[in-house]
């Protein structure tokens, strides 16, 4: 395990270390998404999850296909998508706040059977 995390010989940082970091961000985001009532907080959690994905794109690109740029570009595009998603989500949240007086997810239960 140790030699996987700290590699003295070749590469500066092993891929596994990056992945564990991204994994932790991802599941932190999941946890936040499940437990928060506030829509802004849920959005923050979603940003964490997206960020974790970005890291993976970049890392896989660099370690597995260093000659190509696909991963980096996907990370770029994902950032753009995150920006879009945030803009729309915030617009929705503001609308929710306007209609209900707070920005809590409990207001939105129209899907209840």
């Amino acid at each position, binding site marked *: 395990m140790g030699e*996987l995390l*700290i590699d003295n010989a*070749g*590469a*500066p*940082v092993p*891929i*596994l*270390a990056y*992945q*564990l*970091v991204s*994994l*932790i*961000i*991802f*599941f*932190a*985001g*999941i*946890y*936040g998404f499940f*437990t*928060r*009532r*506030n829509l*802004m*907080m849920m*959005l*923050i959690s979603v*940003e*964490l999850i997206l*960020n974790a994905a970005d890291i993976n794109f*970049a*890392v896989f690109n*660099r*370690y597995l296909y*260093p000659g190509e*740029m*696909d991963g*980096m*570009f996907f990370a*770029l*595009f994902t*950032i753009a998508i995150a*920006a*879009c*998603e*945030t*803009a*729309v989500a*915030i*617009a929705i949240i*503001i*609308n929710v*706040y*306007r209609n209900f*007086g707070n*920005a*809590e997810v409990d207001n939105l239960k129209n899907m209840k059977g």
Partner: protein
Amino acid sequence: MTQQIIFYLLAIAITAFSILAVISKRIVRSATYLLFVLLATAGLYMLLGYYFLFAVQVSVYAGGIMVLFIMAIFLTHKPGKDIRTKKGWRIHASLLLSVAGLLLSGYIILNNAIGIVQFIDKEELTMQQIGTAMLGTGKQQYLLSFEMMSILLLACIVGAILIARKTKNDKNESNETEL
């Protein structure tokens, strides 16, 4: 060795701040922790040698998106107020599931990551390379995605305006709730 030290510093920061971001009771603090996570992530990109990505991460994510967040939080929250969370059992269930997922994914990674550790080279990508790849139409060039993205952004702008726009009727009603 220096790189490894920097990486572990960043890794510890990311882990700590991301967990703090999701358990903090104050929303502004959460947003700040998120900012830290994003900045640390930018540091990771720097370590990997993706300087352009680093710049984009800092300017778009940590700059643009975070400003949006802060503004939205100001619009929808009374300052200094604690944020309510879900009921207890739901928190436990979520924690359980997150940890289980973490373990499962970690197990998979551990079982598959051995052998792919080589970091082949880290020559810097020039802006010319990036620009050619982004605006070319050949193999592994991304003009189509780029254009799609611009359309998506346009659609988002229109959508966001449409959703957030006040209709004439609720202008009067929502005066007191609005800032």
